[in-house]
């Protein structure tokens, strides 16, 4: 177990800058998820931590030791790859014991460690099989077993679930989280799937174009997104955002020909152009024919919830409501907006206005 620090990390491939100076700390035993759209530099950052990529500038510190000049094998880090990367010519047992074999560990220790990891991951009956004889989920577990056997300071996961089907992904998600709760090893997990990030992380690092947009617990990011990008990236369905004028002396933002209500606490930002954000679950259908008028386009019942795709003055809007509804496509409805849940972002800088 160990803490990890990134100090002003930069990465360039040739003349292209991929990562523009990233700094943050990961506490001992923490489960941190790096999340962002593809190409944001999250995998590169992870690979730099692993020692598989050179660090152009800055410093990575594991347990008070700078590791920039340490080889991957000397950093005491284990990594689970997206493609599993199991050695095809070795059995599950040999795959899991490979790192110990390289360290010339004695046979008994190897036997014990592999057996221990196999017990944790429920792989005991598969130890003599070859990777090609395993299902996707089993291969994934072997890849994790290979990491556990080493008992490393830090676990790295590089999009480990993206090759699995949806159902298995949910199951493995829980399995990895449970594993972390049991082993309490510092973990850095990369994904582009914000649901994975939300469900698994102690803290999430949202990355975009080689910079960190925001760091926080899943609910912090959901409730108080620091800027427009995080607001739209975190949460599913995504936050509704309209751009409009917050006229001085009014309690509303004018956008799409509609007045969007703003809480009194934000009144001091009046007089500028803003992005007005409201989550799909923070609106309800009004029963009083008052509020923001909207046209129903699509109704998507999912059983417990119903998702409505609406049009307000030509721009699309999503609303999620509990239970079921009798509204039909083509109907006009009115929206009650929970004013306390409204987010405002500056029209130019896209930073949060509090």
């Amino acid at each position, binding site marked *: 177990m160990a803490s990890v620090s990134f100090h002003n990390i930069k990465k360039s491939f040739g003349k292209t800058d991929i990562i523009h100076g990233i700094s943050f700390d990961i506490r001992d035993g923490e489960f941190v998820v790096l999340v962002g759209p593809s190409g944001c530099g999250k995998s590169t950052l992870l690979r730099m931590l*692993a*020692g*598989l990529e050179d660090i152009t500038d800055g410093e990575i510190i594991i347990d008070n030791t700078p590791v920039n000049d340490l*080889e*991957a*094998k000397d950093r005491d*880090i*284990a*990594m689970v*790859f*997206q*493609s*599993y*990367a*199991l*050695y*095809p*010519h070795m059995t599950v047992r040999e795959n899991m014991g*490979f*790192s110990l074999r*390289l*360290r010339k560990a004695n046979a008994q220790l190897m036997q014990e460690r592999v057996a221990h990891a196999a017990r944790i991951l429920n792989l005991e009956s598969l130890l003599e099989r*070859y*990777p*090609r*004889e*395993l299902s*996707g989920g089993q*291969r994934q577990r072997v890849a994790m077993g*290979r990491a556990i056997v*080493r008992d490393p300071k830090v676990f790295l996961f590089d999009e480990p679930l993206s*090759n699995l089907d949806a159902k298995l992904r949910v199951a493995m998600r829980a399995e990895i989280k449970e594993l972390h709760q049991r082993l309490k090893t510092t973990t850095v997990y990369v994904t582009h799937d914000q649901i994975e990030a939300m469900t698994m992380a102690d803290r999430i690092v949202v990355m975009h174009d080689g910079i960190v947009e925001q760091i926080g617990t899943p609910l912090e990011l959901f409730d108080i997104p620091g800027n427009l990008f995080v607001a739209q990236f975190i949460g599913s369905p995504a936050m509704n955002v309209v751009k409009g004028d917050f006229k001085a002396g009014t309690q509303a933002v004018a956008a799409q020909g509609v007045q969007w209500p703003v809480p009194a606490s934000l009144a001091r930002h009046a007089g500028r152009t803003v992005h007005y954000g409201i989550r799909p679950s923070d609106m309800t259908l009004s029963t009083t024919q008052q509020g923001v008028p909207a046209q129903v386009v699509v109704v998507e019942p999912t059983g417990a919830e119903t998702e409505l795709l609406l049009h307000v003055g030509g721009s699309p809007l999503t609303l999620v409501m509990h239970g079921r509804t009798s509204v039909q496509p083509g109907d006009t409805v009115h929206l009650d907006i929970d004013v306390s849940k409204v987010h405002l972002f500056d029209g130019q800088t896209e930073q949060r206005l509090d």
Partner: protein
Amino acid sequence: MKRSFLKTVTTEAKLLLIGIPVLVWTLVPIYHMFLFAISARDSATSGRLWPQEPTLQNFDFVFHQKHFYLDHFWIQMGNSLLIALTVGFLTLLIATCAAFAISRLKVRGGRTVMNLALFTYFIPAAFLAVPMYKTMGLYGLLNSQWALILAMVTIASPYCIWVLKQASDKLPYELDEAARMDGASPMQLFFMVYLPLMVPSLVAVGTYSLLLAWNEYLYAFLLLSNDKSVTVAVALGNFLSADDSPWELLMTTGLIYAMPPAAIYYTFKRYMVSGLTSGAVKS
């Protein structure tokens, strides 16, 4: 159903239409050789499809070196074997190391090496025979079997490097990274991960270079001259130096000489299957 059946039949018929002539084309000369080998000297050129009195006497002549041309048959056979095996081994060693360094370790200048390797085939090997003769003379290797071995390794290596490099490129790079994270040095990576996964390609390439050396005539003829150091291929050529060549013995020796390559091919054929890497990564 019926349509697809008809389609299958037409496809197979087309294949047979091509396959049968090719088979006949290939087998007739071999049958001819076989016919010579089991015929007595005076009936060898009779033109029959099966000799009147088939005999194994020719094999006795060859195995017991009972002819002027066959005085050193076993030594020459040994030469062929030694040279072919050495060429196969050396080529494999060079090509594997080159492919590993270029494809997996991504050493600088790898592309240049690959381009140079390809460039060597712009000039036919036959054109290089005389320069090679001069070079070997310069090194003082003429009439040493090393001359032929080095020449054959030179000719075989570029192609083998290309084939192995292409095969290496198909191994997922994550395997190397996983091994590095597991603590493997480049040497350990080479021996414990790379080589076992490359076995099918190594067998294919090794067999190729071995057979290339086994079948070589021109270079062997040029670089070796002593009766006791030449290969069987050259010795077979020497049969034709007389006006009255013992055809039946030439063909018998040729038939025997063709056996080891056939055996090698059939032994290693089963190793030449792909699919050993399945299960490594999700494709």
